[in-house]
Structures are given as C-alpha cells and as structure tokens.
C-alpha cells in the first residue's frame, strides 16, 4: 500500500514508468550476464599469445584511416570488466547493453603510436582478432561491428549472446577496448599536432578532436568508475538518470552523436551530485526533484559558458593553458582525470538544441496537465514532427565528402555536417530559428574491415525550425550594399546567378535575391533556396535532395492550381454582398449584421469555390470555358435582423417567418442589383460575382428553444436551428481569428480534412471538429513549438488523433485563451459525468471524443453523436498507420509502391460491402483522388448511369439563353448526399455508411446492430443470413439507381454479438 499512497499523479506515473523501463536484476538474469561475460572472457583468453598481427587483417580500414606501421604482437588484455550502465544499474529498457571494457595491454603499442592514427588502426586490428575468435566460439550467436558514439575510427564489437532467457529482453554485449595508461598524457596535449597530414602550408595544426578521441580511450575506465562510484547506492540518482535517458531518447534531435548520450547524462548528474558541482543534487531529493534540477541546470546554468570542471583527483587543478585550449570546444565538461573535455563531439548547434529542449521540458512540467508526463516522457519528438522543414540528402557514392581523406583531425562525415550547416545558415539567415543536421553512420551488418566507403548509406538529414512565418516566407533577401565591394563579391559568389543588384524604395542599391512566386506558393520559397544553394555548393544533383514541403499538395489541387488562390475574390464578393444586404431598405426589418459561416471564408475549406461563370449578375460568354460545372456549392452566410416584438412564439412559425424574410430579401436583391436568386422553402441562395451565398437568419429568441425529439426510448433535447446557427457563428469567428494568428493553420486543416474524408470518415468526424483538433496543435503545441509548415502540422494532427487519451481526458481547445480555472473545472465536470454515463452503459454512444471550447463546454456542438467509440477506433488505427507512413516517408526513401499517395488512398477491403459510383455522375469529378476499382469480393449489383445529370454543362445546352442556363445551374446538388440520405431512410439501422463527402467514388458499408438483428436468426442456417445481406445490397442498389455503378459483397459480417 505504501507505494500507492502518492498524492501526485505525476509521481504515480513516474513510478509506473520506472517499473516499465528499469531492468529487473533477477538472479536468473544476472546469472545469464555473468555466464555470458565469463564465456567471452574465456574465449578471449584462449587467443594465442604473441600472434603476429599485420594490416592484412583489415587492409581497407587501415588504408582509409591513413595509418602506417601497424604490425604488432597480440597480447592478452590486461583486464576484461563490466562497466557502463549495467554496472551502475541504470539501464533503461528496451536497450539492454552490457558494456565490457577490454583493456588492451601496453605491450601491443609503441611509444609513438599516438601519431597518425596508428593507435586507432591497432585498436581495430586488436578487435578483429577478438572478433575472429568470438565467431569461432559458441558463446556468440552473432558478432557485429558498431561504432563508439558514431565515431567510425573507434569501432566496437556487439555480441549477440547465444544464451537467452525467455522472459528477459534481448541482451547485447558491447566490447569496448580501452587504453588505460598506454600513452604519455602530455603527448596528447590538446594543442599538439599528432596527425602529420594535417597542415596548412607546412604549419602543423593542433589536432584537438584526434587527441581528445585518444584521451577518451585512455581514461574511459577511470571516468566510468568515477561516475559509478557516485551513482552506486544512491537510488534516486539512478532513477533520475533512467528518466533522463528516457527523456533524451524520445528526442532524436538531441540523443545523437554530436549532442547527448547516456554516459554524458550520467557525467552531468555526477557533477551536480558531487562537490565539484557544489552538491546541487543532494541526498534528500526525490527522483523527480533530481530530474528537475538537472533539467534546470542544463537549460539555464551560466556555468556552461566556462565549462564544467570536476575537481581533480589528488593532483593540482586544471592548468590555465589547457583551459584556453579547451575554449575552442563549444561545450566543456572536463573530467576529474585529465585536461580534456568529455563533450568533444558536441557541437554548438547540438548544445543549443539541448538547452532549448530542456527549457521546453521545464515549461511542459509547469504548464501541462499531470505535470506534463506525457509530453516529457511519452511523446516521440523525432525529426518529422519537430522540424517544420525536413530535408533528406542522399549521399550515396558522393565522393566529395571524403575527397580530403576520411579522417584528419575530425572525421569527414562530421566535417561535412558542419559544412552543410554553415551553408544552410548562410542561405536561410534569419528565416530559420534552428537548423539541425544529423548524419548517422549506422553500419549494421557490414564489414568494417573493407574500409569506410559504406558509411554514406544513410541519408543526411537536415531539420529546420522556422523563426517566424513573415521572415521565412520573405520574397526578397537584401544583401550587402553595392558600394561594399568585398561583401558584394562574397554575396555574388554565394548565390551565383540568383544574386541581383537592385534599387530599393528607400534609395539604397544593394545586392539581393528575389524568390518571386504567387502568394499561395510562398511556403515553397524555403525549398527553392535550399535546392539552389545545395546544388550550387555541394554538387549534388536535384534528385538526391528531398525537401519535404509540398508532397501532399496533390490532394488539394485542381490540376496544378490551388483553389485557395480564389479566396481573395471570394472575400471581396462577400464584402459586396454584406454591404448590399445592409443597405436594403424595402424590407420590414433591416439587416443588422452579416456573418460568414462557411469554412471557405476562414481559409479552411479543402476546396474553396472557384468563381462560376454563370453565377454572376451580367450575361456571360460560356464559349471561353471548356468545362463548365453544372453544380455550385453555396456558402452559408448568417444575417441578423433588427429587433422586433412582433415575432411569433412558436418554433415552426419562427422558421416560416424567417423564410418569408429571406425570400423578401432575395427578391429585393434581385430587383435592386440584378442578383439572381434561387430559393427553396428552407433557404435562399443568391448569386453574385461568381459565387453562391446561402442566407440564413438568426433570431435571438430561438436560442433558448429546445426541440423535443422523442427517440426510441428516451427523450432527447435537440438544440433549435437558431442555437446551431449561433454556435456555428461563434466557431466561425473564433477560427477566423486563429487563422489570422497562425497563417499555416489553414493549410494544415485542409490537409487534415482531406485525409479524414479520403478515408471515408466524413460522417464520423465533422469538419468543425477537425478544425478544433488542428487548433489544439497550435494553441497547446507542447512539447513542440506551434508548427510552421503544413506537413509538420499534418503529422502532428495524425499523431494527436492516434495518441490522445480520448477515453480518459477531455480535449480543451482554448481558442482565445480566455478559459478560467472555473471554466476548466466545469468542462472536466461535464466530461466526468458524460463518462460516467458511458461507464454505466457500455452500449451508450455518448461522445467518444470530448471536445470542449469556450462556446461549447459540454462537447455538444460537433462531437455529440459522432464519432462513436467504434468509429473512433477505426479513426485511431488509420491515423496511426498514416502517421507512421508519413514519418517513414520523410526520413527514408521508400520503395516505389509506398509513396505519398498512399496516405490518401484508403483500402477498400475493410468493409462488409463496397458500393462503387459512376464517376461521371459525381458533382465535382475533378476532386476524385483515386478512381476506385475492386477486384475482390462478390460482384452483386451492376447499374448503368443515369442520363439525367451531368456534372458539366454539355456543349449542346450552351446555346440556350442565359436565363435558361442559369436555371440549369444546380445549387448544392449532391447525389452522394441524397443517396446516403435515402439509404438511411429506407434501411434504417441496417449498416453504417462510410463515404467521402468531398468526392470519392466509393462507399463502404459495415453491418451494424448485428447483436440484435442477426442473433435472432441464429437458429436458421448462417448462409441464410448471407442471403439477407445480398437482398439488402440489391435494395441499396435500387435506392441509388443511375448513380451506383456496382456493388461488391466483400465479407459477411462477424456473427458474434
């Protein structure tokens, strides 16, 4: 019980997390480890003494590393000891590595072997011999090469032991050679040159990294021992280390070779826990406190500027000279044994990223629910989700990388990273907030003996976070003044033919680059810059550069054009309309306000309408238009009238009166401005400037009327039309405001809506709900920053959908940031009561998704009835697989068949039956993403197409008068909606209909209510049930005569209840 009496949910969760990731040092497991290690030890000891080793063992490696004189006689290692996280009991699953330090004997090396990579070569040859004998032995199932912290010149061996325990995770033994006291430390002083090949005009340069790399091996065991001493017996510290490892591992941008690794985390914590770090961590702290202190230290401490220095063991403190030479490293953590920094691999950009992540984590802990547990430990922060732009460079066979040799002071890949980084900085300037470059050189399963040439297999990744969108999408970059000759020349050299001498408004004449493009294409500017610079400076061909920007835009385009480009003219038309409405004076009550409702007005419509040539006031020349659509989508506009006391009290009467008013308004618009009007009993549509607007009137009194609808067994209260209208109005204006704050919001919503529809979730997730979900990404971006590119935003949307804890938490979207604590309490209260009802009655389809906003605190507006928990399950599964695919597409080259289109192509096999429609009877055939065909299942029904409806006005009909033509224009006619509506009327509660309201040509059907309906028939043969299904499908076909192309019966529904 004691462990359960934690008061803080965060602590509770952390406990559970620790239980999950901590390694259980059970006797059976430790025995396994001990046995494996002693077997390995035994094998190594059996290697014959004085075996003569030459470079023939691994000629490729020796050649590539550039070493000479590498022969030596093999001697047994001085010691073979377990070190690292296993010995500290700080392993964080799932990586269970036991580090085995193999101390190479001094006799294998000459005194001067610290020069010219001789040490590294011999070190490798030594391992080759060990590998050879391990392979012969029975202890290892497999022995593989790996590298020490991604440093190619320092390989290590990874042994997959033959012995295994069923219940324990996969154990790996890493054999790490060390060189304790092999060389004289003073020869490896940081200001010395030990690689003779590195010189500039005969002047030798200090080999900082080379020396550090060797010093590391010299003191590897000592440092590990020191850290271990600090951690042993201090349970909280160890736990905090595991937490930090979990935290870091979730962040692929900092848990890499040029930033953090498990050992460095432990060193930082050891520093804070000892006298050197003034005991910032002390014994009285809890695990979470230690975590927080460490995080805070990383994020904010000023000590980093000078470096962290451990107190030297026994000897005098670090000398001044070495402090100065250490200064050339961006980060310094000087261990207790020698004057070198343990962080010599860390780059400035890596360190900045680390501090940034730590700071962000601290704010997560403060601001997020439950202490930010999910954000800090559970959310994966990988390149695709974190960075706004991801660029992948395929470097295979790109010789330029190692033109200078593979290893000088630093390795060629690391230098290349730096080169690309500085190029990107110069190219993007203040457009980018952070630029991160990683080139992992994994080599699983390859032969290091053959040299380094296979290290370019993995792509180089560039991640860019945009500073602000105004800066990032800037069209003109102003360079140096023309008079500044040197600078101007440099600028020209960098940009090549893109540089342009221009005269600006303020009279200055300066070098500049101009990235001219249409307004809606401006997000592509960054890609153009990157492509230009990389092609120009790295002699990469364009196909080797993959910049993830517009790969999903195919789903939003009409041909090659994005219909969002018409938004400006749409807003103009709306302005005209609202002005005219307000000026009307021949109606009894004047129009007091006009508010847009449709998503096209807030840039979140997947397909904002294009101006239609027939929906205008004047006559038109249709000859110019090749294909004129015969359908037009009306945009809803809400109007309010002056107050009056003469309104009727009855709900129906109110609606009728409203209609009468709207008809009057339509008539008046027609008379005054010649705007065509297309009324029905329920609403009035008017045409102007190529757009159709549907007028809706809001009457305040209606707000409180509730329609009483008697369902099957209970009374439901249905909000009145006015209530719905008013909610839509509030939603519309709030989202519009949000859209203004985050210009990238619109495109993300459009991608998300298209995705939802493309997978037949049109009925499951309302458009407004999608808007709110995406809004949440921008308003509560933790543990990220608000996304600044459509793909990053879309990926995070998919992850939110798939990872959010819908069953146990409400999603609160605080659009204007005005929800108070009380409001949240109220929302959570509503949520709890809705879940209680759910718990009591599992059949209850109360909202599976609880979306609360300031205008709708009980999640009644958009998610009251949909998605049901079943639909949500499907949504989550689809979102998860789409998100995984998307991340993969961003990070790796995918084989041909797994391309971007797959994200929007829904599998048709997951339904009981599929109805295919006549594609040329869809109202907007150009919106169809993929024509659906089925070659599975049983073909049950086939129908021919109707001739009564065509999505385009036929050439033969063009000749009629304009008035006739206008009559032909069908407002909001959607056969798909009619069909689905009819199905629900004719065959209620038979099945669930899945379809794409945006323009899919297929409908999925899944049987519903099998528990009640079919189980009755279970007495009869099951095959009979199938007959019923086929009959039902025929009825479905009949209901969609002229529209249904064919129906396939895929699989009988499961007959379990």
């Amino acid at each position, binding site marked *: 019980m004691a462990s359960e009496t934690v*008061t803080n949910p965060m602590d509770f969760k952390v406990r559970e997390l620790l239980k999950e990731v901590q390694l259980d040092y059970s006797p059976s497991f430790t025995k396994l480890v001990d046995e494996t290690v002693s077997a390995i030890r035994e094998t190594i000891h059996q290697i014959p003494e004085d075996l003569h080793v030459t470079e023939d063992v691994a000629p490729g490696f020796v050649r590539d590393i550039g070493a000479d004189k590498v022969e030596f006689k093999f001697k047994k290692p001085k010691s073979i000891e377990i070190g690292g996280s296993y010995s500290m009991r700080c392993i964080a699953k799932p990586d269970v590595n036991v580090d085995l330090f193999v101390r190479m004997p001094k006799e294998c090396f000459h005194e001067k072997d610290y020069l010219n990579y001789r040490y590294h070569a011999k070190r490798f040859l030594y391992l080759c011999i060990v590998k050879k004998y391990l392979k012969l032995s029975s202890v290892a199932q497999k022995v593989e090469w790996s590298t020490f912290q991604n440093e190619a010149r320092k390989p290590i061996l990874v042994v997959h032991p033959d012995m295994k325990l069923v219940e324990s995770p996969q154990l790996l033994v890493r054999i790490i050679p060390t060189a304790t006291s092999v060389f004289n430390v003073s020869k490896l002083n940081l200001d010395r040159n030990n690689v003779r090949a590195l010189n500039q005009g005969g002047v030798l340069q200090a080999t900082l990294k080379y020396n550090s790399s060797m010093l590391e091996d010299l003191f590897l065991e000592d440092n590990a021992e020191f850290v271990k001493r600090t951690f042993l017996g201090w349970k909280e510290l160890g736990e905090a280390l595991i937490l930090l490892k979990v935290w870091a591992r979730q962040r692929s941008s900092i848990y890499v070779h040029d930033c953090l690794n498990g050992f460095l985390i432990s060193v930082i914590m050891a520093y804070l826990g000892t006298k050197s770090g003034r005991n910032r961590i002390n014994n009285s702290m809890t695990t979470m406190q230690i975590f927080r202190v460490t995080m805070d230290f990383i994020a904010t401490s000023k000590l980093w500027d000078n470096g962290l220095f451990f107190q030297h063991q026994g000897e005098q403190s670090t000398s001044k000279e070495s402090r100065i030479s250490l200064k050339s490293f961006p980060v310094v953590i000087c261990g207790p044994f020698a004057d070198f920094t343990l962080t010599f691999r860390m780059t400035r950009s890596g360190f900045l990223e680390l501090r940034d992540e730590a700071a962000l984590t601290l704010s997560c802990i403060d601001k997020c629910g439950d202490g930010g547990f999910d954000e800090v430990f559970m959310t994966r922060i990988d390149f695709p989700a974190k960075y706004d732009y991801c660029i992948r460079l395929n470097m295979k066979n790109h010789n330029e990388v190692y033109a200078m040799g593979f290893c000088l002071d630093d390795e060629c890949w690391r230098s290349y990273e730096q080169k690309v980084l500085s190029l990107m900085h110069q190219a993007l300037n203040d457009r980018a907030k952070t630029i991160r470059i990683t080139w992992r050189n994994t080599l699983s399963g390859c032969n290091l003996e053959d040299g380094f040439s296979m290290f370019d297999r993995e792509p180089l990744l560039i991640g860019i976070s945009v500073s602000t969108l105004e800066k990032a999408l800037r069209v003109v970059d102003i360079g140096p003044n023309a008079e500044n000759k040197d600078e101007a020349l440099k600028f020209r050299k960098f940009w090549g033919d893109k540089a342009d001498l221009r005269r600006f408004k303020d009279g200055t004449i300066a070098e500049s680059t101009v990235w001219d493009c249409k307004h809606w294409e401006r997000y592509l500017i960054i890609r153009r810059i990157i492509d230009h610079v990389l092609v120009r400076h790295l002699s990469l061909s364009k196909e080797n550069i993959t910049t993830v920007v517009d790969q999903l835009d195919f789903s939003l385009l009409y041909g090659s054009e994005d219909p969002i480009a018409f938004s400006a003219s749409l807003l103009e038309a709306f302005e005209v309309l609202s002005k005219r409405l307000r000026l009307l004076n021949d109606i009894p009550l004047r129009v007091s306000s006009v508010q847009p409702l449709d998503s096209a007005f807030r840039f979140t419509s997947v397909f904002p309408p294009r101006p239609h040539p027939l929906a205008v006031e004047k006559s038109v020349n249709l000859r110019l238009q090749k294909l004129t659509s015969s359908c037009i989508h009306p945009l809803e506009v809400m109007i309010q009238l002056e107050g009056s006391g003469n309104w009727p009290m009855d709900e129906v009467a109110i609606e009728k*009166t409203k*209609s009468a008013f709207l008809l009057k308004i*339509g008539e008046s618009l027609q008379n005054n401005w010649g705007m065509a009007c297309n009324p029905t009993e329920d609403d009035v549509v008017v045409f102007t400037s190529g757009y159709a607007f549907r007028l809706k009137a809001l009457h305040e009194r209606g707000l409180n009327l509730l329609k009483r609808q008697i369902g099957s067994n209970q009374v439901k209260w249905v909000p009145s039309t006015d209530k719905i209208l008013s909610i839509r109005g509030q939603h519309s204006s709030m989202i519009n405001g949000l859209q203004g704050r985050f210009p990238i919001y619109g495109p993300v919503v459009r991608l998300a809506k298209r995705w939802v529809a493309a997978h037949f979730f049109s009925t499951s997730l309302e458009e407004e709900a999608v808007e709110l979900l995406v809004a949440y990404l921008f308003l509560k971006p933790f543990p990220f920053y608000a996304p600044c590119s459509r793909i990053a935003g879309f990926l995070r949307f998919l992850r939110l959908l798939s990872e959010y804890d819908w069953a146990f938490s409400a999603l609160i979207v605080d659009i204007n940031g005005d929800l108070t604590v009380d409001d949240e309490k109220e929302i959570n209260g509503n949520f709890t009561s809705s879940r209680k009802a759910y718990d009591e009655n599992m059949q209850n389809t109360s909202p599976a998704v609880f979306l609360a906003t300031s205008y709708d605190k009980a999640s009644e507006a958009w998610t009251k009835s949909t998605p049901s928990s079943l639909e949500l399950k499907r949504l989550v599964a689809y979102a998860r697989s789409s998100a995984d695919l998307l991340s993969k597409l961003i990070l790796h080259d995918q084989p041909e*068949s797994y391309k971007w289109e797959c994200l929007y192509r829904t599998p048709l096999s997951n339904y009981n039956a599929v109805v295919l429609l006549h594609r040329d009877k869809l109202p907007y055939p150009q919106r169809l993403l993929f024509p659906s065909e089925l070659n*599975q299942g049983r073909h049950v029904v086939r129908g021919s197409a109707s001739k009564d409806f065509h999505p385009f006005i036929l050439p033969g009909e063009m000749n009629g008068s304009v008035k006739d033509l206008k009559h032909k224009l069908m407002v909001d006619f959607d056969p798909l909606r009619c069909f689905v509506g009819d199905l629900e009327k004719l065959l209620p509660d038979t099945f669930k209909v899945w379809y794409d309201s945006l323009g899919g040509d297929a409908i999925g059907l899944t049987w519903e209510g099998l528990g009640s309906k079919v189980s009755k028939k279970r007495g009869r043969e099951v095959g009979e049930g199938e007959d019923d299904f086929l*009959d039902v499908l025929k009825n479905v076909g009949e209901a969609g005569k002229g529209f249904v192309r064919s129906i396939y019966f895929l699989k009988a529904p499961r007959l379990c209840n």
Partner: protein
Amino acid sequence: MGTEGSHKSLKTTKKKMKKNKDYHEKKKSKLAETEPNMDRVKEEKKKNKSLGKKRKHREKVSEPEATKVDHYSSEGKGPGEVDGQKKKVKLSRKKKINNDEINKADVGKVDELDNEVESGLNEQIGSLADRQNKERKLRKKRRKSDKEKKSGVEKVDELCNEVEDGSKEENDVSKKAHKAKKKARLSSKKDEKLLERREEPEQTEVYEMSSGDDDCSRGMKKWVTDYQQSRPGLKILQQRIDDFMTTFEAQEEQAKKEREALAAEGGWTVVVHHKGRKKTTDAETGVTVGSVAQAAVLDNMAKKKSKDVGLDFYRFQKREAQRNEIMALQSKFEQDKKRIQQLRAARKFKPY
C-alpha cells in the same frame, strides 16, 4: 461461411481444369518457383478426385460464376466505359494504371490499417495464406492446362469471391474470363445433380439495374426531380408561407377563443399577479423580450449577481465547502488511480 463455400467452389474449378488438362496441354509457365510444390499439388488433386463424387453437386455452383465472369468481360475494363462519352473516364483510366502499383501497396497497408476490424484481419491473413497456397496450386495446374492464359486463374479466383484483396492487374480480363468460362461450361455439363445450396440463385448472377431514368421513385431521377420540385420560384414559395401563416394565425385565434370560452363557461378566470412594471426580460434566461437592448440587460444581470450573499457566509457553509473540496480531491484521486490502472492495462507507460 460464404468464404468457405467459395473455397470449395474454387477447388472444384481447379478440378475441372485438371480434367481439361489435355484440352490445354501445351501450357508453359514462367513461374518456375512453383516447381517445388508440384508433388503436393498432385496429392491434392488426387484427394480432390476421391472426393469428386461428393462434390459433384457443387460443381454446378461454378457455372453461374462463369456466367458472371462473362458479364464482366462483356462489360470491358470498366463499366463506365460503356457510355464512352466522358473524357473523365479516360483520364481516370490512365490514372488507374498508375494506381495499380499503389493498390499493391495497399495490400500491405491493409494489414496495418485493419486494427479495428481485427478479427477480420486475422481472417484475412488466414485466407491470404490460404489463397496463396491455392494460387500456387492453380498456377501449377495452369502450367499444364492452359497456354495463353496469364492470370486468368487469379481472375476466376477473385470473381469466385475469395474474401481477399487481390492486387493483380485487371487488364486482359475479358480474354481470360472467356477462357475460364469455356472451361467451366465444359466441366459443368457433366453434373446434373440436385442443387441444394441456398445461396445458389444469389450467387449466380450479378443483379443488373437499369439507369432508372424512367422511374421517378428512386435513384438519380428522383433526386433531380426532388431538386427541381423544391424550387418552384419565389412567388409560389411566398404564397405558401403566407398560406401557412394565415392558417397558423387562424389556429392561434381559434385556440385563444376556445380558452376564453372555457374560462367563460366555468364562470371564473385565473388571475395572474403582475408585479411591478411590465417585464422586458425572460424570467429564466435574461433574454430580451421586446425592444430593450440586450447589453443593458446583461449589465443588469451582472449587477444583480454581485449582490448575492457570499456562499461562505455561515460557518456551516464554510465547513461544507471544505468538505466538498476534500471530497472532490479524493474522488479526483480515485479517478486518477482508476485511470492509471486502465493505462497500465493498456501498457501505456512504455515509452518505446
């Protein structure tokens, strides 16, 4: 069940093919990898033979199927083509070719996506393996029996309703289908046995539907007609509303009179007490009735609220509030615990 049935029918199809072996003797296949399965397939075939009698009646089943194939083939590659008047279709067909590749990918994706219909997935995987097995056998047979055919068997296979997602190309369908049909006919002549399978009539054919252009009761025609009928024009609509309002007012009037009459009959009326001036706001909600500005009302409401006596005026209220808070905290804690149990069950604490 249907799956199983069709499996069986598939097998019989295979058998027939075998019988027609000599008919298509010269078939050579590129699919060398099916070689190892030879023996197995032969065994299988033998088994089939021995079972042959039992199954004879089922062979009938496959004949109609073949008819279906025929329909399909006469239809060409896409029903939409029949019209042959839309450029759209051509366009989409072009796309289709590309998409066949994507379709293949989908096969893989199905596995991922099908979390929800999980058991359905298992079924599918099962049948996939099943089918692969069969396909191998089929190919085997094809080698012997059929010359020109490339993937006709697969086609038959698909059309026979394997609950399956096929990712094969559907070009050449018609040719192959013809072939399959012929074979099926040949073999089906042999059996005249009684048919007892219930699904027989349904399985036999694709239900053909007319375009329904002469039928106003349903389908596209109905929707277009509905659309046009709902737009009779401004004047008529206005007239309708006026009519409605007139009858509505008449009804109201009537009701009022009745009420009055009722009151008069009883000889007394209920007197309602009106306090103060005439109300301008709705009692419960504070919504403006009549012409008073809403802002003013809201203002008033806000002022009124502030006059309320604080909830913690009395000591017992304070105590109650405290207790409530503790209760709330406790329940929240309980909830948290429950939630954690749930999460633990879902193994949501695994950060990998």
